[in-house]
């Protein structure tokens, strides 16, 4: 087993290195320094350009690169095939990836290919005496698990973004580039087309989320109250399952056990009772504001600030007050 920690380098739509990859390089550097290890950047794609240098500037010692037309688009077979061939040859102790849908598809398949498991959607990772451990929540955030990987097996950990701070870049830093050819692997699936999602809301990325629930009474009232408040605070708008199922708001906006898990710096819940399945998706938000007319609503148990009152009265005043005070 080589003494290396690898980070899969993800790109944004513009081809730059994704924030989560920088965060992971920072964490990998910290773990490597504490344990006498090295950091490898795993760079797959077609025309990967300057990514290796960017990876060096964020802490990588070596860039492992497969640059091949087959990898122009993400496919499980292509990406897992290339990554597994590299990992089998160079035997890293730990491979870190982000936890977007595509990365969860990738990391779980890669782990299986390497005859190991994946600690999925983790929020922390550590190495002690050569043993890799990861922390991940389950059961809608009600259970926090610490898992270890058996020594001698490559550990694969997908990490939720913003689990670690983004490090400072050191533009002059350099490293070694190891280039490998694309291995021949069966390609069982091909991407026919990619279309932007209509009305896509990436709630998981929003710093502020204002969500509404059944207490708003009607879809008209939801749209009259919630998006304007979200706009005033520069946030996105979310919803409870009750109103998604009732057809008021598209599923994209659902927060909770069977919707999105979010942890923005500010989460406002308006007319939401705070059922355990809703809390599952938002209880780790930094600041939670609850507006509900029932003082006994369970949402108040997790709220940082609670306002007991009628949303129809409170929300328009709040939107106006925020606009006035923040000068928007």
């Amino acid at each position: 087993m080589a003494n290396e920690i690898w980070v899969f380098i993800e790109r944004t739509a513009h081809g730059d290195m994704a924030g989560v990859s920088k965060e992971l390089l920072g964490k990998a550097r910290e773990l490597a320094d504490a344990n006498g290890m090295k950091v490898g950047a795993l760079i797959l794609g077609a025309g990967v350009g300057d990514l290796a240098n960017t990876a060096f500037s964020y802490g990588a010692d070596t860039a492992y690169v497969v640059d091949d037309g087959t990898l122009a688009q993400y496919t499980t077979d292509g990406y897992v095939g290339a990554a597994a061939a590299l990992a089998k040859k160079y035997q890293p102790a730990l491979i870190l990836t982000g936890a977007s849908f595509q990365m969860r598809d990738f990391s779980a398949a890669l782990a299986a290919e390497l005859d190991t498991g994946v600690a999925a959607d983790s929020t922390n990772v550590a190495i002690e005496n050569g043993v890799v451990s990861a922390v991940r929540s389950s059961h809608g955030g009600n259970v926090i698990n610490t898992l270890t990987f058996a020594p001698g097996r490559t550990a694969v950990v997908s990490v939720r973004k913003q689990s670690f701070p983004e490090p400072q870049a050191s533009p002059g830093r350099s490293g070694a580039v190891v280039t490998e050819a694309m291995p021949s692997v069966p390609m069982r699936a091909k991407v026919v087309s990619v279309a932007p999602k209509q009305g896509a809301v990436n709630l998981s990325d929003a710093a502020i989320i204002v969500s509404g629930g059944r207490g708003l009474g009607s879809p008209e009232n939801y749209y009259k109250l919630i998006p304007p408040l979200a706009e005033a605070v520069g946030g996105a708008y979310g919803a409870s399952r009750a109103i998604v199922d009732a057809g008021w708001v598209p599923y994209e906006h659902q927060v909770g056990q069977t919707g999105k898990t979010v942890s923005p710096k500010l989460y406002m819940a308006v007319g939401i009772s705070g059922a355990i399945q809703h809390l599952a998706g938002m209880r780790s938000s930094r600041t939670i504001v609850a507006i509900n007319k029932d003082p006994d609503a369970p949402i108040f148990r997790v709220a940082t600030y609670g306002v007991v009152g009628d949303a129809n009265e409170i929300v328009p005043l709040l939107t106006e007050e925020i606009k006035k005070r923040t000068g928007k």
Partner: protein
Amino acid sequence: MHIVVCMKQVPRDNSVKINADLTINADGIEQIMNLFDEYAVEEALQWNEKLGGKVTILSIGPEDWKEQIRRALAMGATDSLLLSDPAFTKLDTFGAARVAAAAIKKLGDVDLVLCGRNSTDDETGAFAPALARLLGWAQLTYVGKVVSLESGKIVAERHLEEVVETVEASLPAVATVVKGINEPRYPSLLRIRKVAKVEIPTWSAADLGLSAADLTPALNLVNRVPPPPRPKGEVIEGKDAAEKVARLVDKLMEAQVI
């Protein structure tokens, strides 16, 4: 077309407790079919109505999971298979996928495996990708629409965070479905009665030729705790709505969250 749906039974909500031996205690919580698996069952049934063949519900779990298997049969699934063995109680996700892969190989004639996007208890989303790799089949995760399904080929939309990716893959394949792909039907009373006594075939580790080494977890659970309690909150008081709102905005600005 033979479609297998991997179905997990889970607690209705996650107000679970942690036992001293770190196992999960869901006593007193109603058990239901994993929500995403309900969509998988419905999708399998709709294609079965068009194409004919079989829909087999497959679960790796204890005897009492038969309750949800019967629910899926009452929805319209034609066959079922429970993989149950005392040796399966400590499986991790990769181990469970190994057990499922052995069973699917033994069934021999499977064209498509449908799973949920994730389970709402363990939430790993890793079962289906592991299963696909173990079988050497194509993998399509986060499917929001199956565009076409015919002998040897599937075309499906993968609904990712910001894009919809249309993928064409060869069969056999493993796919996971997201909420919204369809509207799951309710089992009819008539069918509930009809399947109440149906025998559910059960295979053990020995039936699958699995050894203890095959079932060794890749990941070991070393600690399990409830989340740290949230700091105590405060109710914003005021003589009227305007005063409460003004105070709330003060607090939010002090905390620098707006």
